[in-house]
Each structure stands twice: as C-alpha cells, then as structure tokens.
C-alpha cells in the first residue's frame, strides 16, 4: 500500500503508456507523450501552487496585519485567483508609443522560459527526477541567469526612467546575491561529492541515533550555508525585504511599470514559479529533499514531503515579507558583499574542515567555531555603524 502510493505517479504514467502501446501507437509517439506527461504535470502542479500561493499570501499577510484579506470569491476567498485571472486577461494591453515593441513583447516570454526550465532538475520524490543531469546544480544557476536578461529587456524596452532604474537595481541585486547563493550551494555539492541533485538528496538520507535526520541544515556549516542560501533566494526572486527594484514608493513598479494585462500577469507568474523553484532547490540542498523528517513518517509518500516542504519554505518567505521593512539599495549591496560573501566563504571552509575532521563530534565543534567566529566578528562590526542611540531633537521636544 505504502509503496503503491509512493510509486503512484510513475505507475499511472506507465499504465497509461502501456494502454496506448497495446493499441499499436508507434514507439516514438509514446516517447514524446512520456516526456509531455511529465512536463504537463510539473507545469500544472506549479501553476496550481502559484494560484494557491497568490491567495494564501494575501491571506497570511492579512492575518499578520490583523485584517481579513480576500474573502468574497468562493469559500474563504479561495476562488480569488480565478477572478484575478479573468481580470488580467480582459484588461487592455498597453504598450507605450516610444517603447521598443519587439523587445517589450519578448521580455515576459524570456522571463517565463528560465523559470519553467529550472524545474526540470528538482528531485520531486524517490526516483522522480525529470532530467537526471550530472551537473544539475550548475544547470539550475546557468538557466536561471536568463532571468537577468529578461529583467533588463523589460526595463530598457519600456523607454521609461522608472523602468530603467528598476531594472538596473534588479540586475545589480541579482548579480551581487548570485555569488553567495552559488557558493553556499556549492558547499553541499562539495560534501555530497556530486553536482547532481539526486545524489545530494541521497547524501542526506538516513537517521542518526535512529531519529535525527541527517539533513545538511542540521550541521553548523549547513545551517550557515542554508541561511545564506535562503537570504540569497529571497533576493534572487525579488521578494521582500529585497523587493526594492519594484519599490512602489519610489519607482512606481520598477521594470514592470509599463506592463499591463496578461504581460504583467506573465511576469508575476514567472516570479512566483521562480520562487517555488528556488525554494525547491533550497529543500533539495539543505532540508533533505523528499526524505521524511522522522522514520515513522516515511509512510507518507516522498513527493508529498517535497511539495509540503516547498510550501513550508514559501510560507516562511511570506512571513518574512510581513515582518521586515524594505532595505535601502546601498545597505542591500553592502550586506551582500561585506557580510554574506565572507560568510559563505567561512561556511565553505567550515564544511571542508568538517569533512576532513571525520564528521564526528570533534568535527562538529570545529566547524561551529569556523562559522561562528567570523559571524561574531563580522556581525558586530557590521551592526556597530547602525548602533541605536537616543535620538536628540534640535527644534522640538
């Protein structure tokens, strides 16, 4: 029963293809169909998650701000995405007269392609990797680089100063945060000895003492690298507190200013799918991928765990958005270069020492020291400049 549920998606696909095969459908059509089923399922699941997220995010934010949030359309406002979709499709598609029409049209498309392509390498469950690549992590970041081109195209082609400013900020932010993001991801690849996501998940399998999961996030270096990766992921997906490229109080909407109707919705969708993808990579690299957190919970199928963990990480991102104010551009870039980058190097060193000290209790202490001491030094020096002192007013009481 358990294994049946576990293998259900694969078995259903094989059964369907065998059924078609028995009707004499040629082999190559089956091969195309097999790929098509996987692609369709993944896109369907993630667009469904996007629809769910778009309403849940507003609900959670509303809860954090002590109000109701959307509750008119359907039960608990759950059909809000349908209403949003109809609204987006029926809206007029405005293109500025001086815009670069072709590039303006191509930008949302270019944005969507990498967001969907990176989904190919995530291990969704036991033996459920759409594209088993030897260098999957590298593929993720290589394809993800296309997003920057799309943001630039959107910002420049709109022929609007807010758009260009927003795009410049977004690209500066993406390039700066890509470094700590990639280095903290490489740390896990170094310990697992492979760039393939499924090998990294496999390296986190098993339980210490029978119940403690051996996820990388539960080691000192993994905790540090995981936090860095999480912060980098927030910045890469332009989420609060790093949403200043489209800070509405200064830049209208950044590179999205001149987009309306379904092109705007495409950007929105690509941003959310990209966020889910990077959450999925975070889960794969640090939170054990599709593995259950406790031995007796393994009765729940692995793909449920994976989607559940993605939803949890996405929830924490909304939580962060409800909590933290937006950063200023120079603070944001300074934080990436002066704090996150050195810390990711520290995590790198720490992981190497952990490996060579035998991965035992001693190694644990050593790697904790290598991560902790730079954190204390950098952290105190970084916060000293922002020391809070009593504000004195010159002209009022």
């Amino acid at each position, binding site marked *: 029963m358990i294994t049946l549920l576990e293998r259900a998606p694969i078995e259903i696909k094989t059964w369907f293809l065998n059924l078609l095969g028995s009707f004499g459908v040629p082999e190559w059509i089956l091969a195309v169909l097999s790929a098509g089923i996987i692609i369709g399922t993944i896109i369907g699941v993630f667009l469904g998650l996007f629809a769910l997220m778009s309403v849940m995010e507003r609900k959670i934010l509303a809860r954090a701000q002590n109000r109701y949030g959307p509750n008119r359309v359907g039960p608990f406002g759950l059909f809000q995405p349908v209403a949003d979709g109809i609204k987006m499709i029926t809206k007029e598609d405005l293109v500025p007269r001086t815009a670069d029409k072709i590039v303006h049209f191509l930008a949302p498309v270019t944005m969507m392609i990498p967001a969907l392509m990176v989904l190919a390498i995530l291990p969704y469950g036991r033996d459920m990797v759409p594209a088993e690549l030897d260098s999957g992590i590298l593929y993720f970041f290589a394809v993800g*680089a296309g997003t920057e081109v799309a943001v630039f195209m959107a910002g420049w082609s709109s022929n609007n100063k807010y758009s260009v400013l927003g795009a410049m900020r977004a690209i500066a932010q993406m390039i700066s945060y890509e470094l700590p993001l990639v280095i903290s991801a490489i740390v896990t690849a170094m310990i697992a000895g492979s760039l393939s996501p499924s090998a990294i998940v496999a390296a986190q399998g098993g339980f210490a003492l029978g119940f403690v999961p051996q996820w990388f996030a539960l080691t000192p270096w993994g905790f540090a690298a995981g936090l860095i990766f999480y912060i980098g992921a927030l910045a890469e997906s332009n989420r609060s507190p790093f949403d200043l490229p489209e800070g509405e109080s200064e830049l209208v909407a950044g590179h999205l200013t001149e987009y309306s109707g379904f092109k705007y919705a495409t950007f929105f969708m690509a941003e959310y799918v990209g966020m889910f993808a990077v959450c999925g990579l975070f889960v794969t690299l640090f939170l054990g991928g599709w593995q259950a957190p406790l031995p007796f919970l393994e009765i729940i199928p692995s793909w449920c765990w994976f989607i559940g963990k993605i939803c949890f990480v996405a929830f924490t991102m909304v939580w962060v958005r409800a909590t933290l104010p937006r950063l200023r551009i120079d603070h944001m870039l300074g934080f990436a270069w002066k704090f996150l980058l050195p810390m990711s190097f520290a995590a790198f060193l720490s992981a190497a020492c952990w490996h060579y000290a035998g991965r035992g209790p001693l190694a644990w202490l050593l790697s904790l020291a290598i991560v902790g001491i730079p954190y204390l030094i950098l952290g105190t020096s970084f916060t000293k400049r922002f020391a809070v002192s009593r504000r004195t007013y010159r002209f009022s009481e």
Partner: protein
Amino acid sequence: MMCEFLKTCCTDPMKIIGEWLVLLPAIVLLLAAAASVVMRNLIHAALCLTLSFIALGIVFIALGAEFVGFVQLLVYVGAVAMILVFAILLTRPEQLTKSGTLFSGLGPAGGALAGFASLVVLLAFIFTSPVAKKPLPAPVSAPVAAIGEALMGDYVVALLLIGVLLTAALVGAAVLAMEDKKP
C-alpha cells in the same frame, strides 16, 4: 540512401530530429553573431550578442560538453552580457537608439576588406600550425567529477594562478572605484 532516410522519417522521426536539431543552435549562433555586428542600435546588438552566447552554450551541450555549456551560460549570459549592458547604459546615451544597420557609406566595404584579410591570415596560420596535423582525439564525454579531479590534480597550479590573477583584478577594480579620501 534517400529511401532509407524517408523510411526512418516515418518510423522514428525523433531520431532524425535529434540528429538535425544539433544544427539549429549553430545556425542561431551564426545569425545572432552576425546581427550583433551589423545592428546599429547598441542595445539590440548587445541582446543579439547575448543570444549568440546562449546559442553557443546550447551548441556545447548538444555536442556532449555539458559542463562547458552550462559554465558558458552561467558566466557569459549571467555576468558578461549584463556587464556589457551596464557599460552601454552608463556611457553613451545618444548612441543607443539609432535604427537600421551599418550598411551605408564606404564603411562596410572597408570592414569587409579588413575582415576578409584577417580571415585569410587566420586560416593560413590555422592550416600551417602543427596542431592541425595531429589527428583529432576521440570525443570523450567527461563526467563533472573527472573534470573536477583534473582541475584539482594535474592542473591545480594553473587553477590557483588564475585565482590569484582574478583576485588581483578584483582588488584593483575596488581600488580604482574607491573614493579618494584625501582633500
């Protein structure tokens, strides 16, 4: 021969498509590279150059050099193209939005002559060099682990030297960009 080709087309078109699909990114690469040279609008030229970077990465992947292809995409599309675009945006705003291509006046003739001359020189060097006479090595599909071991083993000195060079370049750039504190 033709008959066999048609037969494969009917029974297993994916095979034919797979064989011919390798050519597609190469064609895109050539067209995009040519467009990036002749476009007068600098941003369009930069975007075409980015497209040619992407196509080159796909050519590498299609030829089996997966790792090189991904690194090409990561470095060239993610960093080099963006720095290029930044440089264009920060320097000459009046040049940006010219339309049309460069084919006007005497310039193209001179350009074509110079290009042809350098092509001849390059070809002459390529065909007379001793490397050309060596037989082609058999294609290997190296796993990432093997590439990593080669880099950290046999070629570790070169790797470290490049690291030092890049660090020096980074420090130099930071020093250049630093504000002059002296009055």
